[in-house]
């Protein structure tokens, strides 16, 4: 296959899901079954095509980056620069090809799973349409070769996320969650946009390769390394939003208001991993300082989320915080310099986390069914305290769920073991090289917590006794459309899938060959440890990391069984003992409350203050001026009508004197150079003169009482046949007076300018 064919195939892969969207959004009502099988079928075709692309890429063009650009906007001959265009384009390198397959797998499986999960939904066709637009935008992020399309797709996945979180928008909580997701993401996106602006202002292009090449050649933003670091961190802000990193992680748990398959696709496996993907894409331009920031943000996120996950009781919330934690893990790994491991964990995590969410979907589906059957509308179908013992009734769900849990806990034979071990080794190496020991310490701590809370989830959901035998009878295993994807993801959680070898303890394989850490392009003085130095440290850290991680994961799992299965430790008693800490964690570190009290309330207060200011002060001045003018003019008019000629003569004299004085001032004091004082002086002079002439003119015209102008209007009115309404409804006289006044003012200036 020629490179062009391969890229064309990639474009077809990109556009097919969009076609799904267009067809379903307009015609789903007319299609059989609202087009669900059509959409799913197309997605499986996409999956096949993307596997072909990956195979060809790795087989024929293993070390090449295939890309094509085209001019999208022509800026013409830019003054001081020369001809300039904005190029867009697509690129297929190894990580893009792998990511494409990951997205296609998860998306197609989720389509299949949704067919029964969403059956009977009010907006069934719409749901599949939105899945299509999501898949399109996600693939857009994957195969772009420039920041512009990256940003475009970045926001479009945000849109599809918004639409799908708010799928059941009748519920206030769902539409709130959708808004929160979009707005919080926007905050991150703005940071990313500023980062992009820094790059564009320097390089006048938005394509990755030319930018990296220019940095490599020594050209850096504003000639300062600090700006380069800033650009890196700001671009990373996009990832902070999308990948739910601290401090913008708050939207992701709320996003679980969306249908569960959506949580699996968007909020666990693909979209939230886009941030991690962005960091891998821009890894080459990150300075050491930027990477340290990234590593710490990731580590803090991983830690905070893990502590929260331990205390949650909603099955989806536990998984949501687990996702946040694992995303923090990947970001931390990339920040530490473990490029391959970060992307490896992204890919393995996508499989088992999508599986976990679909598994939870299967459980929730069954619980709903059982609760419905028992006519119980109060019990929460997602609360793990209402579950237990589901293993017997839902064997496929249980066994697959167990495999995913083993993978996420890092137990050997799973893919998660390999990627996690690589990551941990990376953090250890980073700690040794830079002295930031907090990173590996948090990394290992989180590994233990992950194993603990995930097994807590499995035990409370599937093992032990069910809480309500009556309800338990009605629990059934889910249909094949749901169990097939579950099995699929379980198979994809085995190590061999990602290595192609039979050594469960070594990550070496096709994946690590394909994903090699790129050389940094930043100036050597601010670069992180180079590939060789880091590789060396990584090699040393490997053994330690593996042993430590096994011990820690084992401890976590054991602790979970002791506490929740054998009940040797009373979890409630411990929670009671450390009540403040427990409440703190249960309430998610009070982030929502904090943001609500500061950012949300603050903004709302500010908007009210500004609206008041606008209506009262600004508009008050406007109306006040109008009233004052009216008062002055009516006053004069009354004077005229009363026949007080003395007053009139006085005002005429005063007016003429003022105009003359103004004229003298203008011709005598005019400074050659502009200064603020002079401008204010002239401004005041102008206003004064204009005001005076208004004033004077009124004296002259007011006496006619608008007879002439009114007569004119009436003439037109009788001709046109509708101006009659005008003169009845509007106080035309006043307007005409102003018009006339203005004219006189202008005439005074006319004289002035002429001289």
């Amino acid at each position, binding site marked *: 296959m020629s490179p062009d064919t391969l890229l064309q195939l990639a474009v077809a892969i990109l556009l097919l899901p969009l076609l799904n969207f267009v067809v379903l959004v307009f015609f789903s009502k007319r299609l059989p079954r609202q087009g669900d099988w059509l959409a799913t079928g197309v997605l499986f075709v996409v999956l096949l095509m993307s596997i072909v692309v990956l195979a060809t890429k790795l087989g024929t063009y293993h070390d090449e980056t295939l890309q094509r650009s085209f001019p999208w906007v022509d800026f013409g001959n830019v003054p001081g620069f020369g001809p300039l265009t904005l190029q867009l384009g697509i690129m297929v390198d190894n990580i893009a090809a792998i990511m494409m397959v990951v997205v296609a797998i998860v998306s197609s499986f989720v389509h299949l799973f949704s067919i029964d999960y969403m059956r009977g939904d009010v907006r069934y066709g719409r749901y599949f349409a939105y899945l299509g637009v999501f898949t399109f935008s996600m693939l857009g992020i994957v195969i772009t070769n420039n920041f512009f399309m990256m940003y475009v797709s970045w926001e479009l996945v945000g849109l599809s996320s*918004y639409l799908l979180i708010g799928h059941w928008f009748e519920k206030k909580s769902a539409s709130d969650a959708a808004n929160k997701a979009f707005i919080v993401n926007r905050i991150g996106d703005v940071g990313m946009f500023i980062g992009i602006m820094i790059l564009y202002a320097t390089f006048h292009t938005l394509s990755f390769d030319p930018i990296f090449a220019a940095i490599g050649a020594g050209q850096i933003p504003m000639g300062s390394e600090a700006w380069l670091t800033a650009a890196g961190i700001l671009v990373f802000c996009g990832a902070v939003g999308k990948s739910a990193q601290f401090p913008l992680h708050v939207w992701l748990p709320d996003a679980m208001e969306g249908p569960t398959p959506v949580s699996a696709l968007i909020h666990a496996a693909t979209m939230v991993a886009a941030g991690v993907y962005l960091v891998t894409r821009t890894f080459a331009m990150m300075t050491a300082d930027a990477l340290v920031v990234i590593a710490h943000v990731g580590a803090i996120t991983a830690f905070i989320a893990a502590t929260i996950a331990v205390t949650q009781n909603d099955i989806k919330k536990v998984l949501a915080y687990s996702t946040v934690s694992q995303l923090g893990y990947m970001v931390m790994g990339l920040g530490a310099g473990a490029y391959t491991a970060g992307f490896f964990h992204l890919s393995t995590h996508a499989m088992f986390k999508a599986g976990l969410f679909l598994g939870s979907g299967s459980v929730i589906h069954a619980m709903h069914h059982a609760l419905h059957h028992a006519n119980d509308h109060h019990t929460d179908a997602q609360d793990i305290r209402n579950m237990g013992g589901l293993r017997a009734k839902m064997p496929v769900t249980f066994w697959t769920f167990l495999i995913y849990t083993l993978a996420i806990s890092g137990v050997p034979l799973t893919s998660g073991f390999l990627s996690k071990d690589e990551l941990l080794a990376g953090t250890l190496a980073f700690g040794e090289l830079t002295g930031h020991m907090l990173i590996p310490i948090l990394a290992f701590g989180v590994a233990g917590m992950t194993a603990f809370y995930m097994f807590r989830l499995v035990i409370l959901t599937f093992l032990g006794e069910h809480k309500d035998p009556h309800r338990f009878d009605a629990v059934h295993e889910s249909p094949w459309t749901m169990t097939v994807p579950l099995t699929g993801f379980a198979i994809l959680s085995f190590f061999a899938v990602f290595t192609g070898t039979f050594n469960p303890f070594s990550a070496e394989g096709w994946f690590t060959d394909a994903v090699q850490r790129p050389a940094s392009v930043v100036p050597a003085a601010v670069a992180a440890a180079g590939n060789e130095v880091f590789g060396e440290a990584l090699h040393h850290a490997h053994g330690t990391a593996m042993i430590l991680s096994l011990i820690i994961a084992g401890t976590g799992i054991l602790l979970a069984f002791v506490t929740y299965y054998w009940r040797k430790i009373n979890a409630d008693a411990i929670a009671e003992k450390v009540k403040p800490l427990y409440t703190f964690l249960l309430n998610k570190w009070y982030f929502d409350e904090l943001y609500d009290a500061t950012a949300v309330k603050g903004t709302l207060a500010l908007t009210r203050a500004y609206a008041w200011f606008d209506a009262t002060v600004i508009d008050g001045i406007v109306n006040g001026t109008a009233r004052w003018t009216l008062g002055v003019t009516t006053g004069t008019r009354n004077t005229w009508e009363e026949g007080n000629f003395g007053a009139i003569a006085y005002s005429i004299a005063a007016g003429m004197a003022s105009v003359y004085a103004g004229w003298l001032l203008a011709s005598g004091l005019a400074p050659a150079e502009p200064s603020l004082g002079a401008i204010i002086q002239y401004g005041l002079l102008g206003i004064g003169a*204009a005001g005076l002439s208004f004033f004077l003119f009124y004296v002259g015209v007011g006496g006619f009482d608008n007879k002439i102008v009114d007569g004119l209007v009436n003439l037109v009115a009788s001709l046109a046949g509708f101006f009659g*309404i005008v003169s009845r409804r509007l106080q035309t006289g006043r307007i005409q007076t102003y018009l006339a006044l203005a004219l006189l003012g202008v005439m005074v200036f006319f004289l002035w300018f002429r001289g």
Partner: protein
Amino acid sequence: MEIFGIGVLSWLTFLPIVGMLAVLMIPKGNEAIVKWTALGITGLQLILAVVVYLNFDPSLSGINNVDSMQFVEKAKWIDVSANSWVGRIQIEYFLGIDGLSFPMVILTALICFIAVIASWNIPKALKGYMAMLLLLDTGMMGVFVALDFFLFYVFWEVMLLPMYFLIGIWGGPRREYAAIKFFLYTLFGSVLMLLAMIALYFSVTVPDAVTGERIHTFNMLAMMDPANYDPNSLLAGMGTTFRSLAYLGLFIGFAIKVPIFPFHTWLPDAHVEAPTAISVILAGVLLKMGTYGLLRVSFPMFPDIATAWVVPLGILAFINIVYGALCAMAQKDFKKLIAYSSVSHMGIVLLGMAAMNTQGMMGAVFQMFNHGTITAMLFLIVGVVYDRAHTRDLDAFGGLAITMPKYTGIMTVAFFAALGLPGLSGFISEAFSFLGAFQVDELRVITIASTLGIVLTAAYMLWTLQRVFLGKPNEKWAGMPDINGRELSALVPLAIIVLVLGIYPSLLLNYMSTSLNHLIDIVRTGGQGMAMLP
């Protein structure tokens, strides 16, 4: 290019006047004929605009060069022989377009056509209404095609009167207040503009083609060449106080139209009271006259002052963007919210203009066009719900997505376009404006601060969407009919334009780049070394 011996720009400009006369001659009681005549005339105008689009040469620069202006029509209009008092007065009928006015011409024709569709159910005095609307059309089109300052000013004032009547007669409960406020405010601005125009007139002379005698002129192109300024005149030289004053006068005149803070308070009132179609025109075209004036008049005629006052302009842009967004968020009236969002979005135009570089300038002019289409959609959307419910209270609704699914679909496009979603046209113009401004050292901090507007816009747009469209359906509006064919026919073309330009903006950007680059060149070089023809 001529049709029946009359230039196409004259056709574009005066066709609505012909329509107005035709409408006025239709006997009472034939409302359908009135409507179809108005629609036919604006439709014909739109077709002419498309003809212009097809014949426009994007490689010609225009701005201060009459040879590269397109569709030029030039004739002596008023020529009063020399008298002792003001000398010889020569005013030309001088029309022409370049890449700066071209998008506005297309926009005006488009929006007026849409506005007639949106005016289908005007309850009273339809004949007068349509006549005024067509007169307004002429005024707006004239402003964008005039190259003689006097002519420009005449069109500017022609536009004012019908607008005043359209708000004052066919408006809402406080229409008289709103109409007078609009009128006085704009009048105040145009007086200042008139002063600057007179000052320019007395400063600029060009040699007469026959006698070689130097005569004063209103030719805008002549006013852009520093060589034409009489050394002893008021505005001679560079960076003088008088030039600053004249620039300030022009600026305030245009700022009121944009509107720029603190001259913006007429806008919410006018919008709230104006009938739907008039709001559409007001936001769609009228506001652009302000920014167009700055670009056509202020920048090339006063490059010295314009470049010196980049930072104040940037600060005003920032205030418009953020202040407008914050005020919008606090509104409870749907229309007022959209009005304030206009203030915010026009701030982006100002930011791009302040940058005075290619990306910024192209972003600004493109944003003018996009704001025209997107905000027109938003006002049409408010109109649809107001026609049915007779309230615009944002909290009075809820769940319209279920009662009116089609309406909700088209609304989603408009709302997301307004909040700058990529893939829709608004994003590209916003992004370019920001990209342009960021490249200017003095504006960098202002640009970063202005990005706050991006977040705020998303917040108030989505919040509005949630309050009106999401949630459980309000039983009060249970039987509300979905959007009808006529309403869709006004909205769908706009939605298509927003989408197409969002994906392939070059359809319009290509037509602007040459002229705008040339304009930037003029502003940067202070008008030096430009070939100038009388």
